[in-house]
């Protein structure tokens, strides 16, 4: 099983991602070192909390350019998916990594639906992709988010929460999961396994 590097930059629940990958037999390296990031076989960008704080941490650690230039498989998880986009409304406007066009906005699902979107929602798969190999239509995934990625050509799978929620996105060698695959039981484990098996 392959090696995977998980960015540990003080803005993510790294341990749960690490443990999920270890359950799959992967060798996990945690790092905030730009050189180790640049040389990683494959890279996971976790993230929880505020986009501005996370981007500030990445900038302070000199990680923005190595992530943007990363040529092998990259997976952003939760806030990590949002960071792939151009910018965010969060905190009055925050520039992000700008690897996928579009602006992340506040989640406004309408009356009767609490925010954050917290809990298990079903995935509707739009397009076949190696990351979603073996993931059944309607699989359950665990979401926690209060901001929403723009729905566009990058969307591979959606959830429905008062409107479409881009749940899995891809642009070239970069993938994102809005939900937490490390906490999404069988479907999540399958997605992480698929990521580990994508040709680096």
């Amino acid at each position: 099983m392959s090696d995977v590097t998980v960015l540990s930059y003080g803005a993510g629940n790294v341990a749960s991602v690490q443990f999920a990958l270890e359950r799959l037999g992967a060798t996990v390296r945690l790092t905030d070192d730009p050189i180790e990031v640049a040389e990683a076989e494959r890279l996971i960008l976790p993230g929880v909390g505020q986009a501005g704080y996370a981007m500030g941490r990445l900038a302070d650690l000199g990680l923005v350019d190595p992530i943007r230039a990363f040529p092998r498989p990259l997976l952003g998880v939760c806030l990590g998916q949002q960071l792939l986009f151009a910018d965010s409304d969060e905190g009055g406007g925050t520039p992000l990594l700008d690897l996928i066009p579009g602006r992340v906005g506040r989640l406004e699902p309408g009356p009767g639906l609490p925010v954050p979107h917290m809990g298990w929602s079903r995935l509707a798969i739009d397009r076949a992709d190696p990351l979603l190999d073996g993931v059944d239509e309607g699989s359950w995934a665990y979401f926690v988010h209060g901001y929403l990625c723009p729905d566009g050509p990058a969307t591979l799978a959606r959830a429905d929460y008062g409107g479409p929620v881009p749940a899995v996105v891809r642009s070239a060698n970069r993938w994102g999961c809005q939900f937490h695959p490390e906490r999404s039981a069988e479907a999540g484990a399958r997605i992480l396994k698929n990521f580990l098996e994508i040709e680096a």
Partner: protein
Amino acid sequence: MTARRIIPCLDVKDGRVVKGVRFQGHADMGDAAELAARYRDQGADELVFYDIAASPEGRTLDYGWVRDIARLLDIPFSVAGGIRSVDQAARCLDHGADKVSINSPALERPELIAEMADRLGSQCVVVGVDSKASGDDWVVHQYTGSPDASRAAGRRTLDWIVEAQALGAGEIVLNCMDEDGVRRGYDIAQLAAARAVLTIPLVASGGAGSAEHFQEVFEQADVSGALAASVFHTGTLPIPDLKAFLNAAGVEVRL
């Protein structure tokens, strides 16, 4: 939409799950990690671990078992017990917990909610509220882990949950103490009133005795999740049976 969450609550002491009314006649229910794995396999949507020894002993919870549990679980879990600072909450997350639940410390110093939300994000900040009827209203109680220390906190429940939400709480767990442990159903009126004043997810706690009680609380109080302990620990209501019942009744659950 999200599936309605079924959430077993495990009281943990020294890495063991104990059952019984808190601080009275604890019976050992087994290793926390083993029971967590069993609930995971039965289809629990989330787990809550309450370190019942932490707060009375004046310490924060033991991070070692948080890590053990995080290694095992592929579903989310929250931890509670003796967490009074942002650093302590951050350490829980560092050890693999998804959410941190605070109760009395939030009442002592409500800014703790905002500090946690600012640094860690609202999504991991759960405010637990112990609430009791008082006349035709509900009021908050604190230090409920210990019968000697338990007392009214001097706040209306509905005011406090709105304040907690405004400070940045990502979820409220409302424990209706009048119903706790008596298994005659959740406090629908109180939970519906709480739901009506909140925009964040609400989890019901206290009173579950049968599958019908879960159906009622989801249908009538519109809560996102329902927490229970004894019905699960005693085997009275196996989670697969509960979920099959709810599914047949038209309540969306994760099967």
